């Protein structure tokens, strides 16, 4: 039986960002085992097959509850970095204190100021492109890359809302990097055929060639073994054979669906485990412009609207983040082909206890994912769009606009299920991503999110992983 200093489960953002910082501080003799359930799929492989992995994620879990609800993730080397659209907003300061400020949800055990240096570090690793002219959240340094080019409608909205409409921060390169060409606005980011977006394979792939790492592909972690409140190793299956590896530290970074599933199968039960599953809820808006052409931007999503995000309304309904799309769609009207705009309005959900991931007694090979409904808080946020959108669209010459009558089935974010907190009674992991009872088990990812915010979670996942690794090396917050 092999013994390692660290066993890492998964190769997505949480695992990889943790590992990157860990290796910077680890000695030359450490031994790290990385277990990745999927295979390596090159960009060419993915584009040719129009999918990110040979494993169909839809067959990897048992869906229950709301029929129209879907979940989107990827099983393969690099995890969600293959299929992500590379949108990288930070959370807003008040996202970390929703309960204190607005009396809803719960507060995070960390605040924005503690996260800021790790946000910055994650942005530098990913070489994020973002606004050079103010941001909705405080920053200690400029973005590493200049902003993407606005569309003409973006510019009009910016003129009307200078403090609320920004170029979307993104890991779709504005300028070529050492590993990636610049984005060419082809708008198929989930497959990015030119590898212009940050992915684990593009930018951290070399890390996995470090001689200290043993990377096992197509090795599915099954159970974390514990003894006396200490993780002792991981049982995994590869090529049909179950093997146990011993480890001094276990870093669980599958995702917010499989982390609680593996933990539950490992006997790490907790009243909160698997519960409060959530993600944002969104709907699309089509705006028919009058005399203004669109789609001059340099990337798939150009505008980012914060006018309905933070404020007293959050005591009544969910915050809304708006994305302005630059993916061309056309009107069938000569001379007005491009006088159309698509917005996505993304509303935060309040995590609810009954939405959960669990293990089925009948089939323990897959997680059961039960989502009953979005919260009333989120649905009031969607309903508020009827009143809010005309305020935004007053910035544009608009002929008419249409809000979709349906909600998008998923935002491809899985959050909650291993919630972080200071009180072991009402949280699974602590502020440093360490399991409350098993102190040599770290749980990465957006499962830690006590509340979701309307912003995309990936940058926060990455920053939390860097922060957790820093804490392990004594560089964390003084409050830790």
């Amino acid at each position, binding site marked *: 039986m092999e013994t390692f200093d660290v066993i890492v489960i998964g190769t997505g953002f949480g695992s990889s960002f943790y590992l990157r910082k860990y290796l910077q501080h680890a000695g030359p003799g450490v031994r790290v085992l990385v277990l990745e359930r999927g295979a390596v799929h090159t960009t060419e492989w993915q*584009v040719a097959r*129009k999918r990110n992995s040979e494993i169909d994620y839809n067959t990897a879990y048992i869906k229950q509850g709301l029929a129209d609800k879907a979940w989107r993730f990827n099983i393969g080397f690099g995890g969600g970095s293959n299929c992500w659209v590379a949108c990288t907003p930070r959370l807003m300061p008040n996202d970390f204190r929703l309960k204190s400020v607005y009396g809803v949800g719960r507060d995070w055990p960390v605040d924005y100021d503690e996260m800021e240096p790790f946000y910055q570090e994650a942005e530098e690793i990913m070489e994020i492109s973002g606004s050079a002219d103010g941001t909705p959240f405080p920053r200690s340094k400029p973005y590493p890359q*200049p902003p993407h*080019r606005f569309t003409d409608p973006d510019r009009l909205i910016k003129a009307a809302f200078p403090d609320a409409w920004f170029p979307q921060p993104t890991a779709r390169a504005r300028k070529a990097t050492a590993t990636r060409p610049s984005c*060419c*606005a*082809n*708008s198929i980011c989930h497959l990015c055929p*030119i590898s212009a977006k940050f992915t684990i394979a593009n930018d951290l792939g070399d890390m996995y060639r470090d001689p200290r790492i043993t990377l096992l592909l197509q090795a599915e972690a099954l159970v974390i073994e514990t003894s006396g409140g200490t993780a002792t190793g991981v049982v995994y299956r590869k090529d049909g054979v179950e093997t146990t590896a011993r480890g001094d530290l276990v870093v669980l970074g599958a995702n917010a669906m499989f982390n609680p599933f593996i933990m539950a199968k490992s006997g790490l039960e907790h009243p909160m485990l698997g519960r409060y599953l959530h993600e944002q809820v969104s709907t699309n808006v089509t705006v028919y412009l009058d005399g203004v052409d669109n789609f001059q931007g340099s990337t798939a999503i150009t505008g980012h609207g914060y006018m309905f995000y933070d404020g007293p309304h959050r005591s009544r309904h969910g915050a809304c983040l708006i994305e302005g799309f630059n993916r*061309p769609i056309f009107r069938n009207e000569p001379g007005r082909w491009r006088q159309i705009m698509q917005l996505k309005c993304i509303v935060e959900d309040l995590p609810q206890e009954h939405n959960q991931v669990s293990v089925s007694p009948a089939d323990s090979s897959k997680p059961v994912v039960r989502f009953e409904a979005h919260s009333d808080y989120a649905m009031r946020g969607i309903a508020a769009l009827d009143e809010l959108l005309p305020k935004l669209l007053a910035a544009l010459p608009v002929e008419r606009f249409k809000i979709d009558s349906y909600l998008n089935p998923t935002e491809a974010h899985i959050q909650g299920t291993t919630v972080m907190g200071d009180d072991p009674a009402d949280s699974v992991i602590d502020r440093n991503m360490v399991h409350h009872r098993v102190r040599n088990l770290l749980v990465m990812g957006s499962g830690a999110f006590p509340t979701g915010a309307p912003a995309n979670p990936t940058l926060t996942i990455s920053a939390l992983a860097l922060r957790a690794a820093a804490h392990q090396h004594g560089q964390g917050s003084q409050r830790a």
Partner: protein
Amino acid sequence: MIRLSRRALLISGAAGAAVAGTGLAGIGVARASTAESMIRAVIRDRFPDIRMSDEDFSRFTADYLTYMKGEGRRWLVRLAGWMPGLGTNDTLRASLPAAVQRRLVAVEDDIMHVFLMSTDFFLRRPEDGPTVSYLAYGDPLVSPCSNPLASFDA
């Protein structure tokens, strides 16, 4: 990793079109291929004021029939081929089930979209006249960096 220069791609595509563009013909000229005739009818209907060389148009049509998405849409183009006049004959279209009519409109919208993304339609200046050239097939899975609308200046 595929690395393509969008500018180089657009320039090479335009140069090719110019060579092929001798002997301009109206889009309404009949062609042997019935599927092609449907595509031609859609383009003529939605862009009545433009011209395109037969060579460019044949390249666009061939690429569309090669790369068009979805078996359903492919089937509908074949249906249009088997029923000459489907693209323009309103009586014939009206005889089809409503669901088929809706799918036909979706195919026509797709042809329009791909045509706009495949040509220099949006790159022309007013003084360039009505002739449109084929640049590269306007599907990023086929031509990753061929978005004719995107701008990359500051």
